[in-house]
C-alpha cells in the first residue's frame, strides 16, 4: 500500500516534466481498497479495473517497471506503449486488463468467471469499479448474468463520492447501491476503505462465499480521491468540493492508519518502516529510470496488421 502511494507520488513529482504524455487517474487516498482486496486473493484469482487502475494493478502484483514504461509510452511498457496509463495488463499476475470506458470491463470480468464456470475452474474474478460506474446499465446486466449462473465474481465498488467533478446527488437517488445489489441476489457488504484490514477481512468473507459456489458478491468501500480526477495536482480550488471535506478524509489516510496500527501491534518497528521505505524508494527510482531509458516503439510498430491476431 505504501508502495502504491510512493509510486503515485513519484508520478506526481515527475508529471510536470511532460514526459508522461497520457492522462493519469491517481488512486492516492484510495490505496486501502486495492491493497486490502488483493491481499485476500490467490494468485490465480483475476483482477480487472477501469480508468483508475494503477493501485489495482500493483496490488495484484503487476510489474512496476512495465507500468511506468507504459505511462512513458515506451516499447517496454505492458502494452508496448500502445495503451498508456488507462490500459494496464499483466497476465503473469492475472491482472487481465483495465480500460477507460466507464463500465467497459465489468461484463468482461463476468465473462472471465463464465469461462471458468464452463471449464470448471474455481478462481474468483474481481472487478473494481467506482460508485459512478454503477450508473451504467451494463452493471445491471452483468450482475443479472453473474447471479443467474452463480458465477465466481467479486464486484468491488469504491465510493469516492464523485464522478469526475459531479457529486452523487446530481447522479443517483439517495439510496444505497448495496441495496440494489442485494435485491439482485448478490452477497453484499459495506466497509471503510481507509481501513485496509477491514477491507481485507470483508473481502475474505466475500471470497469464501464466492468460492463455495454460492454466487457472486458486491462490496462497497467508502474512500476518497485526494488529487484531481485526472492528473497530478490537487483540485479543491475548483470549488466542486470543500477544503474541509478534503481535510477530513485526508486525516483518515489509509497508509498512515495501517502504519500506526502496525507500530502499535508491534508487527512493524519505526526502523523497519524506514528500511521498507528506502527499499521501495529504490525500486521506484529504478522503475522510472528504466522507463525513461527505454526507447519509444519503432516506426515499424505502427502497422495496421497489428490490429489482428494471426
Amino acid at each position, binding site marked *: 500500500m505504501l508502495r502504491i502511494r510512493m509510486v503515485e507520488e513519484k508520478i506526481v513529482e515527475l508529471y510536470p516534466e511532460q514526459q508522461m504524455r497520457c492522462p493519469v487517474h491517481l488512486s492516492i487516498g484510495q490505496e486501502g481498497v486495492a491493497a486490502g482486496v488483493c491481499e485476500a486473493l490467490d494468485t490465480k484469482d483475476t483482477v480487472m479495473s477501469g480508468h483508475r487502475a494503477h493501485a489495482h494493478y500493483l496490488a495484484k502484483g503487476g510489474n512496476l517497471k512495465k507500468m511506468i514504461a507504459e505511462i512513458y509510452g515506451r516499447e517496454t*511498457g*505492458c*502494452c*508496448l506503449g*500502445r*495503451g498508456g496509463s488507462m*490500459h494496464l*495488463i499483466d*497476465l503473469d499476475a492475472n491482472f*487481465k*486488463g483495465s*480500460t477507460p*470506458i466507464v463500465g*467497459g*470491463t*465489468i*461484463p*468482461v*470480468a*463476468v*465473462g*472471465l*468467471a*463464465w*469461462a*471458468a464456470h*464452463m*471449464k470448471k475452474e474455481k478462481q474468483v*474474478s474481481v472487478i473494481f469499479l467506482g460508485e459512478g460506474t454503477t450508473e451504467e*446499465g*451494463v452493471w*445491471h*446486466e*452483468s450482475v*443479472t*448474468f453473474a447471479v*443467474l449462473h452463480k458465477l465466481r465474481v467479486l464486484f468491488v465498488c469504491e465510493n469516492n463520492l464523485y464522478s469526475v467533478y459531479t457529486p452523487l446527488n446530481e447522479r443517483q437517488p439517495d439510496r444505497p447501491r448495496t441495496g440494489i445489489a442485494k435485491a439482485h441476489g448478490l452477497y453484499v457488504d459495506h466497509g471503510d476503505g481507509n481501513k485496509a484490514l477491514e477491507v481485507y477481512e470483508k473481502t475474505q468473507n466475500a471470497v469464501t462465499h464466492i468460492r463455495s459456489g454460492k454466487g457472486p458478491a458486491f462490496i462497497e468501500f467508502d474512500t476518497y480521491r485526494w488529487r484531481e480526477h485526472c492528473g497530478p495536482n490537487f483540485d479543491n480550488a475548483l470549488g466542486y468540493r470543500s477544503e474541509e471535506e478534503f481535510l477530513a478524509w485526508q486525516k483518515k489516510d489509509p497508509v498512515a492508519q495501517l502504519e500506526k496500527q502496525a507500530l502499535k501491534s508491534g508487527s512493524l518497528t519505526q526502523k523497519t518502516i524506514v528500511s521498507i521505505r528506502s527499499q521501495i524508494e529504490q525500486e521506484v527510482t529504478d522503475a522510472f529510470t528504466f522507463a525513461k531509458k527505454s526507447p519509444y516503439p519503432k516506426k515499424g510498430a505502427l502497422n*495496421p496488421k*497489428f*490490429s*489482428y*491476431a*494471426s
Partner: protein
Amino acid sequence: MPRKRIINGAQAIREALDQSLAKDPRVFVVGEGVPDPKGVFGTSIGLREKYGKNRVWDMPVAENGMTGACIGAAISGMRPVLVHQRLDFALLSLDQIINNAAKWFYMFGGQQSVPLVIRMVIGHGWGQGAQHSQNLQALFAHIPGLKVVMPSQPQDAKGLLIAAIADPNPVIYLEHRWIHSAQGNVSKKYFTTEIGKAAITKRGSDVTIVSSSYMALEALRAAQLLAKINVDAEVVDLRTISPLDTPAITRSVKKTGHLLVVDSGWTNGGIAGEIIARVVEKHMDVLKKPPARIALPDMPAPSSPGLTKFYYPNIEMIMRKACNIIGKDPVVVAKVLAEDTSLSATPHDVPNSSYMGPF
C-alpha cells in the same frame, strides 16, 4: 465435391455450428432463443440436446453485457458464438464491439486476442420495418480490428462460419434472412472458406457486378438474365466485407472495364462507395465508363409492402444499370423479365412462395 448435396443456408449454418461444437471443446453458442424449439430460424435446432447446457446457452435480453461477457470468455481461451436474431438488436452492444472487441488485441500489445463470432440476422420483407431490417455492414467494416463476412451461397455460409469460429479475431457474421432459404450444394465435411477472399460466381467480360449476401444472389440472377440479351456480366460475390478482396475486384474490372456495385445497405457511406473509391484511386484508367452503384435509398426501411416494393433494389434495377453502364439500351430488359414467369410468381416481400409470415 463428388455428389450433390442440396441444403439451404439455415441448414448450412446449423451444420457449421454442429461441426465446430463437435470439433473444438472451446466453442460454445449463446443467444436469445438459441436453445428454444425454433432455434433461430432453424440454425441452432437440437444443439442443446446434443451438446448440453454448458455449450449451448440462452441469455437475458442484455446485448451489451452479454457481448462483454463473451469477450471475457474469449480472452479466457473459449470460442464464443453470440447470436442476435436481428442485427438491429446488436446496436445495443456497439460499445463492447467497437470499444473492446475490436481493439483488445491491439491496445493490450497483442497479448490476448478475442476469438469471438457475432452472428447477426438481417431482416427483410414481411413488413419488418425500420428497426428490424438494417443492413449495417458498412458500419462494422469501418472498424479496424473486426472482420466482417456476409455469405450468399449455403456452401460459403457454412465455410465462412467455420472459418470465423476458427479465426482468432472478432468476426461479425452477417446473415441476411433470405439466404436462410437459399438452396445450394454443400460439402458434408468440416471445411473453411477463407476469410478475405471473394468468389466469382459467374464469369463474364462486359461488366463487373460486385455484390454480397442476398444481393449477390440477385446479382447472379440478373447476370443470368442479362446473358439472354447478350450482356456478359461477371459477378463478384464478396463473401467478406472486411478485409475487402480488392485484388479480385481489380482483376475483374481490368478485364471488363466496367464496374457496378450492388449493396444491400444504405447508399451514403456504404460499402459500394468504398469499393468504387478503391478502384478509381488506383485504376481509374481501366474504367471505360464511370462506375455505378445500386444500394438502398438513404431513408429508414418502411413496413408497408406498398413501400418496400420501391425501397429495395431488384433484379430489374441491376439489369438496367448494367445495360446503362455499357451503353446498351435497357428497353429489352422489360421483355426478358416478362418472359420469366418465376419472377412474377412470388410477392416481392417474401423470400419464396411458401413463406407465410409472421417473422
